[in-house]
């Protein structure tokens, strides 16, 4: 695989979350998973969560795999490690595609991930200021911690800034 060795790039894998401060950029590739980006414009600190399922349901394993355990963990990292004020945080969410053509709604895991993410962020009082969701293709997202801008690229489409 081609590895980008630029030290300023932080890559997030499935079921993981990372935070970084300017001038670093944080990126990931999403399919049916949802990418949650939190940003503190005062400290220029950003965090990214790559969740794959809406609820933990006592499954165990990595808490960052699930929206209901991953988002609290990301908020906790931003507040307690990066020392961001919770009311300074804004959210942007991406992904949740339906990658395989399965007709049943039950198997539209991307949609469930989106709904649960929106619900939990609302519960935390963190405003979603931008999103690019759904579709049938993967997303590549890159957060610039200097500006808070997320570059979103959907396969086969032009990239756009959010």
């Amino acid at each position: 695989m081609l590895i980008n060795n630029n030290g300023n790039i932080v890559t997030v894998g499935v079921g993981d979350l990372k935070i970084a401060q300017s001038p670093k950029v944080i990126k990931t590739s999403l399919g049916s998973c949802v990418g949650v980006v939190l940003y503190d414009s005062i400290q220029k600190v950003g965090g990214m969560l790559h969740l794959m399922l809406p609820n933990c349901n006592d499954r165990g394993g990595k808490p960052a795999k699930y929206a209901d355990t991953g988002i609290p963990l990301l908020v906790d990292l931003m507040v307690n490690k990066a020392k961001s004020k919770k009311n300074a945080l804004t959210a942007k969410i991406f992904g949740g595609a339906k990658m395989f053509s399965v007709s049943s709604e039950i198997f539209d895991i991307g949609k469930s991930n989106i709904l649960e993410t929106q619900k939990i962020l609302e519960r935390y009082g963190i405003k979603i200021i931008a999103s690019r969701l759904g579709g049938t293709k993967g997303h590549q997202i890159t957060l610039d911690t200097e500006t808070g801008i997320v570059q979103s690229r959907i396969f086969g489409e032009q990239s756009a800034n959010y």
Partner: protein
Amino acid sequence: MQISKEHLKVLDIIVKISMDNASRSFSKTIKHAALIQLVKTDLVDISEITEEMNNDFREMVASILRLEGSLNGKLMFMIPLDGALTLQDFYLQEEPGTAKEFDELTEGTVQEIGNILASAIGNSFAAGLGSMLLPTPPQVLCDFAGSIFAQLIFEESVDNDKILLTETKFKLSNTEIDCYFFLLPDLTTLEDSLNEYEKATNINP
């Protein structure tokens, strides 16, 4: 997820033999040498392996198949989009550069290569472990490397933070084209097959 080191060694040997056979079938099909550059079998952390994949910015086309039988699992053949066009020319015995755009012929080529590799792997596992493996019809995905790979491992990652993965990298000779082949055996049926193999051979693996 449990698999003993001994079983991992047996699997590694069978996978290497399988990939040799697969490489021969692949080369014969496209009438061009497909050289194995890497064969790796390991229990990998889902976040670490996908982080590695997410560093690959390339657009890929992949053929994903399920293996069903006494040993279950998933297989994926993945090649960069531009490489798929060259592969199509090799497969259809056209002059290099004939295929210009990804179309049904390219998709069909990738599907067919996926089938051929899956059959070679299935036959090698049948010969090595006595396990019957039948490939299902392939599904073709055209997307970013990281997005495709995340879909491949999705089901296995729901209940496990580590997955058993074999990764093979081929290079098409006299080209700069790399292509990848992944096998995700189902742990439960794999253990059963390896235990049967131990009994049949009456040796410790």
